[in-house]
């Protein structure tokens, strides 16, 4: 038998997953470049890590999507993060580990991880 507390637990567990199905994400956007160049350079594990962390940590109002080639193929994998506070920040030569750091410091902490950006 499910108790009310367990019902709430089920809801909490799934909440961040089904949050994907909300329309029009106005908040933070994380975009991973996933053209052939990006994929070849390892963009897929980066995308996976970003998407998992956003859901696991229950980060609200944040979407993780993909885009095509932006023309800087030698800097792939590229991740663009757009927040209200800092505007668009372009991270280059990303790895899942760097991605985790970006989530912690930039998305949650609000501090751009300068060393990984295109200007870093």
């Amino acid at each position, binding site marked *: *038998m*499910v*108790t*009310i507390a367990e*019902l709430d637990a*089920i*809801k909490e*567990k*799934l*909440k961040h*997953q*089904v949050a*994907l*199905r*909300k*329309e*029009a*994400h106005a908040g933070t956007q994380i975009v*991973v*470049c*996933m*053209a*052939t160049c990006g*994929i070849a350079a390892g963009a*897929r594990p980066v*995308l*996976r890590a*970003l*998407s*998992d962390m956003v*859901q*696991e940590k229950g980060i609200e109002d944040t*979407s*993780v*999507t*993909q*885009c*095509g080639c932006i023309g800087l193929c030698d800097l792939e994998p590229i991740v663009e993060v757009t927040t209200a506070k800092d505007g668009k920040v372009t991270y280059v030569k990303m790895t899942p580990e760097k991605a985790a750091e970006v989530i912690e410091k930039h998305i949650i902490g609000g501090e751009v991880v300068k060393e990984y950006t295109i200007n870093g």
Partner: protein
Amino acid sequence: MYRSHVLVCGGTGCTSSGSGAIIAKLEEELKKNGLEEEIEVVKTGCFGLCALGPIMIVYPEGAFYSMVKAEDIPEIVTEHLLKGRVVERLLYSETVTENGIKALSDTNFYRKQHRVALRNCGVINPENIDEYIAFDGYKALAKVLTEMTPEQVIDTVLASGLRGRGGGGFPTGKKWQLARNLVKDADQKYVCCNADEGDPGAFMDRSVLEGDPHVVIEAMAIAGYAIGATQGYIYVRAEYPIAVQRLQIAIKQAREYGLLGKNIFGLGFDFDLDIRLGAGAFVCGEETALMTSIEGNRGEPRPRPPFPAESGLFQKPTVLNNVETYANIPQIILNGAEWFASMGTEKSKGTKVFALGGKIHNTGLVEIPMGTTLREVIYEIGGGIPNGKQFKAAQTGGPSGGCIPAAHLDIPIDYDNLIAIGSMMGSGGLIVMDENNCMVDIAKFFLEFTVDESCGKCTPCRIGTKRLYEMLEKITSGNATLEDLDKMEKLCYYIKNNSLCGLGQTAPNPVLSTLRYFKDEYIAHVTEKKCPAGVCQDLLTYKIIDIKCKGCTACARGCPVGAITGTVKQPHVIDTDKCIKCGACMAKCKFGAIIKE
């Protein structure tokens, strides 16, 4: 965890246009590209835009793909799901703008809609109870069991102003109150759900059951708590196999979670549910016939009173509500009566789901606040009438309802306004007719349906509808006199006043309302022996216009009875004695030389 969800409509509409094959192909392609752990495929209920099915929506982008074919899937997977490039040519054209994808809620079809009863349809996987719970499912049941007395539940439903969505429009809270209070010492009470949706063209109840079956289960448990019942029955037609299957899965899952059965939430409340399958008789949508059928007898109505609230199923106090009515209940409990009462008109609160059909672009399911005008529904949400034709009438309420002419397009839709103009809300079928529809023929169509579906228990309905149908046939075959029209109207009122149940009492409505608004069409059939819309075959003759005919012989070759003669490059002639008026010649002619009149 999944980074993207692909929602594919698994409602009956999209299933019949091939969404099953799409899901299979999608899973195959995802596997091939190693994406099966990144992307979740969710089979949902109806999105509403059935005309554009099969429908598929990809989140987080919210890309809305319409009329998807299995051949398109590899492209969608490699381009969109792998590389993030939305396949624009497959998007619903309304959502494509210069700056990317427009949100679905901003399109004409969805903008004016407000989804309450359908809120989870096309959003959750109906076969997964956890997803329902994630969208506040069973929270309303928990709330009533922990925070509210049965009387408070009834008062909340009463205050919300919710009225029966099956057609009658009786206040739901009042029904519950009567079932709770009329018989004090009942040893058993029942909660029933009427899912015997029978109006031609109406499929909102099916869509709720297919897209969000748990909402009905939750609402029925709430009703059980409110009136003091421990057992419920859902009476659903066997012609709805997907709905029945999902209901069965939902009931099983709810039992496993202890949300049905003994001691729900450990709070001492017992409630369980069973499904009863209807064999498809229209009359079983009538409440007394429905309960007779659940009892295991032939589905025939009985006189009221006693009303079900006093003596219903197995002669016990019973609440019987329609699927859509139940679908509103958990939201009313969670958001409060005021929230619900803030939508709609003075006497009709909330929203209503309509099934748009007939001569309209966006065939499908729409949920609008009460008080929206017919013009908004047809021209904005529905996208207007195809092929530049003129609107003639909208039929609401199915075989029990009537036709609304163009003059009433701006009337706000609610229970009372529709009755005032000679139609009714009914269960929410809305069939649009254009200048090519003959109103006498429409009346005849609905009468044919009621003649077929009359159970035969009472004479006015059994014989009256048959005679009425014969009179309509006489008119459409050009054999009637003006006197017959008066006789027919008299018979209509006789049937209405003397039939036993709602089926007979409303069966003449299609005739009466077309007589009221389109009498000129009836008169044209009678006096001029002409069908102005060119539908009634007996009153038509096909002719070839000499000067337009090029003598290509296409019509003669297409005629199945050899009624067309003529030599090559010479005008042809139709032998009207042989002609069976099938229209094949007209379809073949490339020069518009064949007319019917």
